[in-house]
């Protein structure tokens, strides 16, 4: 599963202060990717060593699954 790189600007926008919250870490220590957990699918930004999430946005209801009926417009 590909894990997107995260920039320092991205982390800043998420309210992360690296010096305060993750001393010794850089933006290269974070990745953005979908996870399945309690509550369903999330697009998480996670510190890879500690697994701490700095962002968890709800993802698509079925995650990466595409149904045959997805996109069907019956109107």
């Amino acid at each position: 599963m590909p894990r997107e790189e995260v920039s320092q600007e991205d982390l800043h926008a998420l309210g992360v202060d690296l010096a305060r919250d993750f001393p010794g870490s850089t933006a290269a220590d974070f990745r953005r990717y979908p996870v399945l957990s309690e509550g369903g699918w999330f697009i998480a930004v996670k510190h890879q060593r500690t697994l701490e999430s700095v962002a968890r946005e709800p993802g698509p209801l079925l995650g990466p699954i595409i149904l045959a009926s997805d996109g069907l417009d019956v109107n």
Partner: protein
Amino acid sequence: MTVSLKDLDDGQFTERYGADRFTATVLASRMRYIVQHMCTGLLNNAFSLILRDWYDFAATISGPPEQNYPMSSVSNSLAMFLGTMSEAVRNTVEEYGPENLRPGDVVICNDPYRAGNHVNDICFIRPVFAGDRLISFVTLRAHQLDMGGVVPAGFSGTKRNVYENGLVIAPTLLYRDNKPIKSAFNLIFDNARYCALLLPDIKTIYANLLLGEQLILESVERYGVEAYLGAIRYSTDVSAEAMRTALAELPDGVYEAEEGIDCDGIDDTVDYRIKVKITKSGPRMELDFSGTSPQARTSINAGILDTKTAVGVALKFLIDPATPFTSGAYRDIDIVLPAGTFISATPPDGAVFLYWESTGPVLLAVFRALEKALGRKAVGGDYGSLNIHNANGVLEDGTPWVTTAQCGGEHGPWGATEAGDADSYSVVYQANNLDPATEAIESELPAVVLRKEYTPDSGGAGTNRGGAAVLKDTLYLTAAEHWSSPLHTKSPSGLGVYGGKSGGLGATWVFHADRGDVVRRKELIGTTDEVYAEATPVAGMLNPDTKCIDPDGKYFYFASTPVWHTKPHAVFRYLTNGGGGWGDPTERDPERVKKDVRDEYVTIEGAYRDYGVVITGDPLTDPEGLQVDEAATRKRRAEMAAR
């Protein structure tokens, strides 16, 4: 820093949960009582063998949309359903639209990709309203004996797509204002077989949803809505905290393992492998399944939610067995899983039916990956495959019959633990079901269960011994067609741990009547090696000449004959895999080995070979006269230690 639940003072607790600690606990217990009561009601009144004799259903309670549907209570039944049902409720209700629900509704969904499991496992979801407010859902997921598709009763690994697999029901209203919706029933009954059994069972399911709703509303009337909703949060927080505590006790690190399944239903040329990389840091865990093989060409696939279940069950077994398996158990666990693998199949080509055969290795991969980190707390592997036998035919008077999951190798051994020897007759770790009674089978089917017994020397040797493999022979009195699905015969599933040895391999054979009719001969088929010369292999690693099990032999492919057509008096023999042992076998007390020889779990030869214990006597003619030769045992064990 998170304050543990027991360290909250009374004020903090009440503020968080809208109820005092005592009330929240009472309501949490009450919810567990409710789901169990719903299950008892279905079990006692079901007609279908798969519900009545297998307990192939589960009940849950979930919270409302504004809480994101937390699943706070689960029944003591099929774990394979429990891990999917929290998402099943959310996905079904969100697609249907919570705003479209009203009191008196029941919504159903059976789509494996939306709701997990397979199409026969319909989720029946009842919204619970307190006045006009949607406060909860009670859900029964129950296996329907048939859901259409090309295989009667459905259990087969040879179906090639969703169109062959069976009827897919997107979120659909089944009841409105407590009245059945005829068109929804027609959808099922125009597609499914054995509807005379399905209809009363669906009515019973509906009645038990009403029971669950009624009991919830009685509690809400007594304690109030806020206390009830607080108790839902509290119940999931208890599970989350227990799992978090258990995770924190595991050593941090990266743990990897691979597992597999024999093949799919097209041919045996494709190697299906699960790769898992587990990263553990503090109280958090991430399981990444990237690199797992693409989805299979037939219905051996599992869906994403089934894989989520297997992860949860594995971790509950290994590190947190004491608290209920609510949705909160996953709070500090992230699963990374791309779509389109054989444990995350997609429609329409990634047919999902025998999903547990593919998620069993997920569970085993977690067991294997964490074995060293767990040390003494590692758990041995089980028999690995339900070896489901699915058959049907017609009686002389034209009445159709069907058997499903009764006469194969559905039940077998578990792996040993630090606590002791393993049980030899349970159902796989991810399930929690009954064993259909032989009397029930024989009273309803033209079938006779000839053998149902343990096999010596099949359980993994260890300080604590793995469970023994189960051998089962079933005689079919009429002509029949059969689908046989043993999918873990190439390598042992009964993983040995902490120095224990792995369990033996299983296999399946059919003895056609023209090669030895047990009815005419009036004697059972023996269990010695020479009898297999008369057998036709169905699946397993076998010597091609003798047809006996041989780990270095030839693999006989389970779907080489996709449908077995047999004449009257054919016998199918299933031998499950053995369970894994725990601990060094040469540390096992010789007296315990002697007892195993007396009870025929171990032979005298096996005691010598696997345990280094020399036993004299004859277990068949003088079982209480067996003796341990202590001097010879010391010598033998010294030889084994010197290797």
